[in-house]
């Protein structure tokens, strides 16, 4: 049974499965939640009332800490919340907020997007979904309806014209083609607008196979220190609808990634595509728990244990870093531990219930649940080297495993606990130090280290890898750099996360520089990309130094052409964290510009703007921008150039002075030849 959608409706779970055609099976389902009271006698009146008004049966259920006596109550969340209030929050409740369609499938061993549940952890699978791509060319931020749509379903259709005709044709094509999978640009922004317009124009919107839609509210939330925004969503029944612009899972893993996320989490693909990796790993753990007959706590009430100050200071230190010496280095190897944190969880048996005695024979819930996921990741990491189709699945597994560590310390994680989080980072620090000791004992030089990888110089590196794998018990991967540049901080010390270098396969690996950052204007990204492409042809530092003139020419050319560059290439895309700013800044001015245009925005949303005059904080949304501040963008260009120039002997020796002279010289040339340049500068 290949399930492509699931939903809880009318007292049961609807499973939409594809077997030639798509059919719906309705399964009556009325699951209980579980209640444990530390002192049941104190609440006997409440228990009697529960037995009388709902179905409440005494039972024993299993938590990750062991068996627990209590009651199974056949009621919903409002009753659970009333119990909390009545018992002054003394009651412990379980399985209250587990999605009922997910719980139904987990209890019965049903796996979505999978013909055989035994293939749940297989990286290779097929699907017979017929798909349709809908590319809406209108702007979802400003336009309330669609007037220009491209539809790809075998052949490509372009719908353009009056609103009613366009929408009628779009709906007609969806109804006629009846796709199982719809990939739509900004689907979550458009669907509610389309619904409103369809009602106004008296058109039937055919996206749902039952005519019903599930809704998800919009919200802004904190994730890894930054604010994110999730759009409200309208999810059709019986079909997969993926927002190709907003879905992180689709962006990172493609369709294969979405389907794998659905398989692992036990959620419908439409939902899996809309969730963050953190929610996916949390859902995966929930599915695993239910499948193993373990109940899921409703509230997170078990706080960390009492600690002395000194113990807290020792434990709460995070990952280990070694600061690099800035400069360019030849023949460097990067030793990278494969999924280090999840491997530590599995290997060291770290779980909330084993934290006090991880060496016990009884394996904890987290290691048991994560082990198959980790094994799968190790397989996909190997497979993707020969089969690019696996890359999407591997990317999603990587993200889920990365967040599984973070979730152990997350306040709302169902199976998390801060001591587990600290136990993982503590062991990772020991492992990195051990690796450094091994490396240096074998005569290598350690150049840099970040949490789970080391950059080393020396040979034979294969022997080093073999010894590290053996002594740490973890798997590592090697990457060889012909040369690598560690950039400096303003104080001259090496930056931890800003480096680039040429790998032995000829590609250039880049981290933390303009070409990699999301807010870099296209014009500058292109310039740095062109420079890196040229630099990628040099296999040694000597060869690289010979490319100075060629790379410098790219910079000079970019600088010269800057005033005439298309405005759209100056667009800065940034995720906003707030709507009000205490001080004047470019980002605040961009938020105000959006407000002035009447475009609603929320924290966590991405905005795109062009700086017209940085001095007076004049900023326009990208669609309104007609000019740009050349001085401001020249500074950005120079900053990007400095990152590249540092790789060259000529660039390093007198970086600042040399650039100052070259910029002045180029400016003088431009001003002499192009009168418009002076005008552009004044803008």
């Amino acid at each position, binding site marked *: 049974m290949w399930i492509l959608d699931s939903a809880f409706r009318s007292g049961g779970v609807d499973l939409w499965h594809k077997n030639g055609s798509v059919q719906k099976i309705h399964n009556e389902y009325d699951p209980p939640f579980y209640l444990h009271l530390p002192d049941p006698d104190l609440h006997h009146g409440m228990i009697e009332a529960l037995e009388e008004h709902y179905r409440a049966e005494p039972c024993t259920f299993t938590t990750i800490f062991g068996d627990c006596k209590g009651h199974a109550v056949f009621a919903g969340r409002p009753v659970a919340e009333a119990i909390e209030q009545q018992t002054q929050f003394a009651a412990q409740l379980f399985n209250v907020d587990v999605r009922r369609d997910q719980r139904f499938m987990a209890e019965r061993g049903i796996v979505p997007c999978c013909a055989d549940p035994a293939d749940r952890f297989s990286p290779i699978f097929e699907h017979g979904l017929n798909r349709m791509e809908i590319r809406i060319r209108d702007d979802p931020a400003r336009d309330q309806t669609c007037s220009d749509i491209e539809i790809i379903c075998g052949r490509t259709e372009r719908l353009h014209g009056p609103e009613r005709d366009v929408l009628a044709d779009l709906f007609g094509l969806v109804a006629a083609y009846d796709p199982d999978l719809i990939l739509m640009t900004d689907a979550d922004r458009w669907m509610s607008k389309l619904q409103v317009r369809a009602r106004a124009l008296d058109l039937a919107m055919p996206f749902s196979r039952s005519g019903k839609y599930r809704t998800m509210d919009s919200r802004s939330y904190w994730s890894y220190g930054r604010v994110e925004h999730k759009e409200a969503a309208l999810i059709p029944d019986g079909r997969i609808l993926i927002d190709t612009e907003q879905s992180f899972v689709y962006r990172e893993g493609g369709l294969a990634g979405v389907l794998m996320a659905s398989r692992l989490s036990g959620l419908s693909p439409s939902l899996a595509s809309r969730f963050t990796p953190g929610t996916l790993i949390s859902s995966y753990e929930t599915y695993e728990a239910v499948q193993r007959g373990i109940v899921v706590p409703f509230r997170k009430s078990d*706080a960390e244990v009492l600690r002395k100050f000194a113990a807290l200071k020792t434990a709460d230190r995070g990952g280990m870093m070694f600061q690099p010496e800035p400069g360019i280095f030849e023949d460097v190897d990067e030793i990278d531990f494969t999924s280090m944190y999840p491997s530590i969880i599995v290997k060291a048996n770290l779980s909330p219930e084993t934290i006090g005695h991880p060496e016990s024979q009884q394996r904890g819930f987290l290691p048991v649940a994560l082990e198959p996921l980790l094994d799968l990741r190790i397989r996909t990491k190997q497979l993707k080297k020969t089969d690019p189709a696996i890359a999407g699945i591997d990317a999603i597994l990587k993200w889920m495993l990365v967040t599984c560590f973070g979730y152990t310390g997350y306040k709302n994680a169902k199976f998390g606990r801060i001591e587990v989080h600290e136990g993982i980072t503590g062991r990772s620090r020991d492992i990195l130090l051990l690796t450094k000791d091994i490396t240096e004992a074998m005569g290598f030089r350690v150049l840099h280290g970040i949490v789970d990888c080391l950059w080393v110089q020396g040979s034979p590196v294969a022997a080093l890898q073999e010894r590290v794998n053996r002594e740490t018990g973890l798997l590592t991967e090697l990457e060889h750099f012909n040369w690598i540049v560690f950039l400096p901080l303003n104080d001259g010390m090496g930056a931890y996360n800003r480096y680039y270098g040429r790998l032995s396969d000829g590609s250039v690996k880049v981290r933390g520089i303009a070409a990699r950052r999301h807010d870099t204007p296209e014009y500058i990204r292109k310039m740095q990309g062109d420079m890196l492409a040229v630099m990628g042809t040099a296999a040694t530092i000597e060869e690289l130094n010979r490319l100075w003139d060629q790379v410098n020419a790219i910079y000079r050319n970019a600088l010269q052409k800057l005033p005439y560059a298309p405005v759209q290439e100056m667009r800065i895309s940034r995720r906003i964290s707030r709507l009000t700013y205490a001080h004047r800044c470019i980002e605040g001015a961009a938020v105000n510009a959006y407000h002035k245009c009447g475009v609603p925005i929320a924290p966590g949303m991405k905005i795109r703007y062009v700086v017209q005059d940085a001095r007076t904080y004049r900023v326009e949304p990208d669609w309104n921008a007609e000019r740009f501040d050349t001085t401001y963008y020249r500074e950005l260009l120079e900053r990007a150039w400095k990152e590249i120039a540092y790789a060259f002997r000529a660039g390093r020796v007198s970086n600042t002075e040399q650039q100052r002279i070259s910029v002045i010289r180029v400016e003088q040339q431009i001003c002499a030849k192009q009168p418009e340049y002076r005008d552009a500068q004044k803008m």
Partner: protein
Amino acid sequence: MLIELSKGITLHPGSFTAVIAPEKKILAALNSNADLQRFLFLYVCGNYSRILSGISRTSNNFEVRRPFTADQLLTVIHEASHTIVFIEHDPTLFDGAERLFVPIASALKQTGREAMVILWAPASDRSFAALIRQADRIIEILPEGPPPDRFGFSSQRSCRKGGVVPRAQKTLEV
């Protein structure tokens, strides 16, 4: 055993006291009282403490427990058996957990019957106001010196010709 917060303001055992005071003031009160080292002291804070790193760590009786949710805070208060329970208020614990205002306020009051319970915040907010409804005492100590400049910088620096606040500075008020 008393903690002198400020001259003439002392905190007593067997009470639940809400304190609104600058960080420096509360740190000074905790660090300057050598007597505190003789008692079991529980410091409760969320994920990001404002003053934990500034507290003298010499005492063996000084213990820390960090709740990350309001449910965990309730558990911590219920389980506290220390002579002094000092809670650094963290409003983020109560995002979406307003249902716990009353139970936590009651638990603070209950624990305060036996111990010295201090709920501290540098400034009041909605959740703090809800938690201190059952407090025996509420003490607010204002920062010393002139009231803060609402624009956050000296007027001399901010004013342009003519000495008036430029129109553009309105953005600083939002």
